[in-house]
């Protein structure tokens, strides 16, 4: 009996190690293109030596280890909890609560996103340079935080609309194409200074932890509602979350000027 459990444990550990070894190799492969590109340009185009080779190696090792751990954690932690919550919400059958959850997930994960904070500060400077707001620090900070709330609100609404779409089974391309028309129409009215930032804001909102969770939510919901296909209906939440900020940021620019 004792021997049996020990053999099982040994087998499990070997399987885990084999799995980790394979993931490590995969992470190495994922990092390789960047190393090649940077190495090639440094040696052949700029013709300069590497400033800190040891630091470079340690850093690359950290990246590979980190990526391996992240992908493992994704499979045993983030995906399962996202999907199990989606199943539970579907079983509960309350549209209200699933929408509140969708909004909270979109808003809560975006409002503190570091990339967004950086973009909002930059946008405030552009607005000041364009003469839309005063160049005083207080006015800049107010503009930046207003913009951040706007984007977070738009991502919350996007995930909510995306969840309604999954539940109702609407085809995604009508909503996305409608969104494109919204973007183009807003471009015509928005102050020209804000357009570049608005277009870029769509891409920076979805963080590395949000994406797997939101994907798992969509796939989980569409696989627990009968008549929905996880592939055609489950994906698409991220697409909304990167489209609505463009419209909302331009709206914010129109409102301020």
């Amino acid at each position, binding site marked *: 009996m004792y021997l049996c459990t020990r053999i099982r444990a040994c087998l499990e550990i070997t399987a885990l190690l084999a799995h980790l070894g394979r993931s490590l190799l995969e992470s190495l492969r994922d990092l390789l293109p960047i190393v090649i590109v940077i190495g090639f340009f440094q040696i052949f185009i700029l013709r300069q030596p590497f400033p800190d080779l040891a630091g470079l190696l340690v*850093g690359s090792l950290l990246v590979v280890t980190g990526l391996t751990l992240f992908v493992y954690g994704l499979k045993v932690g983030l*995906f*399962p909890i996202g999907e199990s919550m989606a199943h539970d919400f579907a079983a509960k059958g309350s549209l209200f609560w699933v929408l509140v959850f969708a909004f909270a997930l979109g808003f809560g994960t975006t409002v*503190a996103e570091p990339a967004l904070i950086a973009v909002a500060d930059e946008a405030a400077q552009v607005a000041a340079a364009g003469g839309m707001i005063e160049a005083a620090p207080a006015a800049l900070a107010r503009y930046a935080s207003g913009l951040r709330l706007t984007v977070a609100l738009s991502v919350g609404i996007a995930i909510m609309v995306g969840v309604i779409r999954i539940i109702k089974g609407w085809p995604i391309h009508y909503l996305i194409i409608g969104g494109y028309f919204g973007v183009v129409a807003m471009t015509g009215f928005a102050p020209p200074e804000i357009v570049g930032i608005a277009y870029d804001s769509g891409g920076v909102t979805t963080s590395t932890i949000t994406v797997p969770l939101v994907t798992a939510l969509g796939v989980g919901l569409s696989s627990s509602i009968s008549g929905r296909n996880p592939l055609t209906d489950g994906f698409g939440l991220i697409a909304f979350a990167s489209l609505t900020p463009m419209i909302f940021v331009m709206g914010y620019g129109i409102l301020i000027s």
Partner: protein
Amino acid sequence: MSLISDSMQVLLATLRDVVPIAAILFGFQRFVLRRPIPNLRQVLIGLLYVLLGLTFFLQGLEQALFPLGKLMAQQLTAPEFLGIDQGHTDVHWGHYLWVYVFAAAIGFSTTIAEPSLIAVAIKANQVSGGAIGTWRLRVAVAVGVALGIALGSYRIITGTPLHWYIIVGYVIVIVQTAYAPKSIIALAYDSGGVTTSTVTVPLVAALGLGLATHVPGRNPLMDGFGLIAFASLFPIMTVIGYAQLGEWMTRREAKRFQEQR
């Protein structure tokens, strides 16, 4: 020592990212769904791995690749490197050949290493029962980002208005959507949003800033934007294009098979 203190800072920053998400998840689980989480221990261990993994990942990038990549973006766009006289106001876009090559290469390689794209590719592979290969999807997306960043650099250099490019891009996506296999559409739209994240944004932003600073007649505050927008639009086209190519090849194969019989 600085490595450890830096790592602690990155860990704290990542923690600040994770805590609101964890609060939302566990809050809803506890007070709305009122159900225990299946395999709670494993989920917690998984979250810990995600937290540690992202910390190492970001710390490694900050230490090794970002400084060099950003420096490179500045050096490649500098007029001295390109052999352009200072004071020229009208520079031909063809002078910037190495910038386009660098833009495409850095766009492709950072996208391959992007963790959120890996996540979406894994899920797409599971859901499609293996029909969508994780590696092939990621390469299709990375090719899109490479094209997008290269074209975006061309736009900054020539100073043409951003919205025309985006509008034409939208028209192409709409036309492609009409002819694309239904199963790929949602995934293709999603792949636009996930490409620009932890790895791509800092390097691409450095490239945009370098170009807008050095190219005569450009203002870093006004013209440095737009690369991220290109990087989120073009993968939609390449992913749909890849699916269309696959469909076309299967059809041709089937036709040939029929002719042989």
